């Protein structure tokens, strides 16, 4: 495909490492874990008024916990089934 001078051969391990760092599952998982931690903390330390704002449900706490679980699942999926570098076409 590329018409330029041949690209320097990157060894397969480095390529796989780079592809995995940029794995969308890790990005989603990481962001959800971070947001989950923030929400759980706010859900615990927030004022009573804030905790009851959502019709009496502590929506920060529950959403935070759900996001932690989802984020952990995404990261686990990414770690157990890592990206394989694309086969050459």
């Amino acid at each position, binding site marked *: 495909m590329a018409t330029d001078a041949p690209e320097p051969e990157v060894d397969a391990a480095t390529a796989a490492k780079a592809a995995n760092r940029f794995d969308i599952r890790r990005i989603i998982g990481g962001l959800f874990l971070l947001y989950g931690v923030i929400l759980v903390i706010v859900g615990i330390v927030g004022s009573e008024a804030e905790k009851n704002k959502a019709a009496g449900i502590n929506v920060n706490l529950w959403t935070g916990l759900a996001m932690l679980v989802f984020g952990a699942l995404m990261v686990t999926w990414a770690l157990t089934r890592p990206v394989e570098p*694309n086969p050459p076409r």
Partner: protein
Amino acid sequence: MPVLAASALSLDVSALDYAILGIYFLVVLGIGAVARLSIKTDVDFFLSGRSLPAWITGLAFVAANLGALEILGMAANGAQYGIATVHFYWIGAVPAMVFLGIVMMPFYYGAKVRSVPDYLRLRFNNPTHALNAATFAVATVLIAGVNLFALALIINLMLGWSISVAIIVAAAIVLIYITLGGLTSAIYNEVLQFFIIVASLLPLTLVALHDMGGWSGLQDKIKASPLKEGGLHAWQGIGVGNVTNPIDANWIAIVFGLGFVLSFGYWTTNFAEVQRALSAKSMSAARRTPLIGAYPKIFIPALTIIPGLVALVSVKGLGGSSSDLQYNNAIPLLIERYLPEGMLGLAVTGLVAAFMAGVAANVTSFNTVFTYDLWQDYVAKDRDEKYYVRVGRLATVGGLLISVATAFIAKGYSNIMNYVQLLFSYFNAPLFATFIIAMFWRRTTPWAGFWGLIAGFLGAFVTHQLTSSGTVDLGSELAASFWGAIVAFVADAVVTVGVSLVTKPKPEDELRGLVWGLPRKDAEPERMEEGDDAWYRSVWLLGGVALGLVVILNIIFI
């Protein structure tokens, strides 16, 4: 039941909420910066190197549409029309997505076309191609401007920034991550946005529903609302000549206008959608893209229509003359009412992310069509790949600048922009007629494509003129748009068939791989990924189950 005071809508956004939004912006820009490293060829920039797995392209497929006005608009429809709004999803989007994956994708992906207009060039001729590419490019840039303006409005409403500042900040962020990372960064951000929007809308919906006393409590309140019993049913009061449903359209308008023509036209021929499938890594993944997207699409109405209904029964004066209380603000009003610091930031982030993804989907499809179909085909052929990546980046900048200008024009004349958007929806409905006839009837000639599209556009235009001037009465504005689509489809089909009968068809050899029943002679064996033949990846199974689900849901909400 507590009733919201008819006060000005403004969210009490804290530093923490801003931090949540700020983190999201950083991640988005970071994705753009990293995606840039993987761009070596034009195919990398415009089609993500055709390398993505189906679950990513599938979620991007549905997220590209979940941006824009979809979320606020469908909540508004929910408040205005009730449960009947599900027609946009269950008779509209889902069957069209299944059709795209099972029937049409083999032609798109198999012919290795790089865009929807590219298919028209191979199937018909250059004039048809140029007409479609040019109208698509212009329409997409204008609609990106409308989306940008809507995004600015919502930022202004929720965060209190001035509209001009909001337009410029949003455009700058989209510009940076698309120019850097091309389609890859757009698609990654669409997938991320999809999860963020679900993470914010799902808790909001559950909380609102709980506050109404569950689904049965909400039903009782709807029966007491202006929508009455009709707001709870999708398929009642739709008899021809006896229309009493809230949408004010009979079943012909709903099934053929909204379902068959408008939705199939949008989902199967709009390049902003199809582009996501073309970036998949194999034929199997490309076909599964819209099928995987269909599943979230089946359940998204729960996250838009239910908040709309809750707003209808609990916000006093919704839909009235106050600009803060228009139907479009149903979701922001509930966010203000229910979400505390923290979740508030997440919800604002979700909406901003959804809007940015909508603009980005417009911009990435624009730069591809501009570069491949206009610049490469008609201005500068046979340059090297780096040249076209550069053109694509410049097109992104140019397209966004025009969008920003359009957004500022829309600021002064929002009804004119609605009109522009309507005008270009005229191009979508006939396009589906052209595609379906061209794919299944070999005899369709090159010039039939061109004149069919023109006729379809004129058909929609004339219908709209007649109904908006009051000469013909076709029911509500929404029902009239369904009928306009039907007229456009029929006009396109009649002219396409008529012109085909009197002009010269293409030789069969030039149609191989482009029409039904004529496979390519040199067809290389389909590149299969490991596991592509697994039973749960069968397109028939995925499509069949999706259709089965919508049939069951339609029966439940009959």
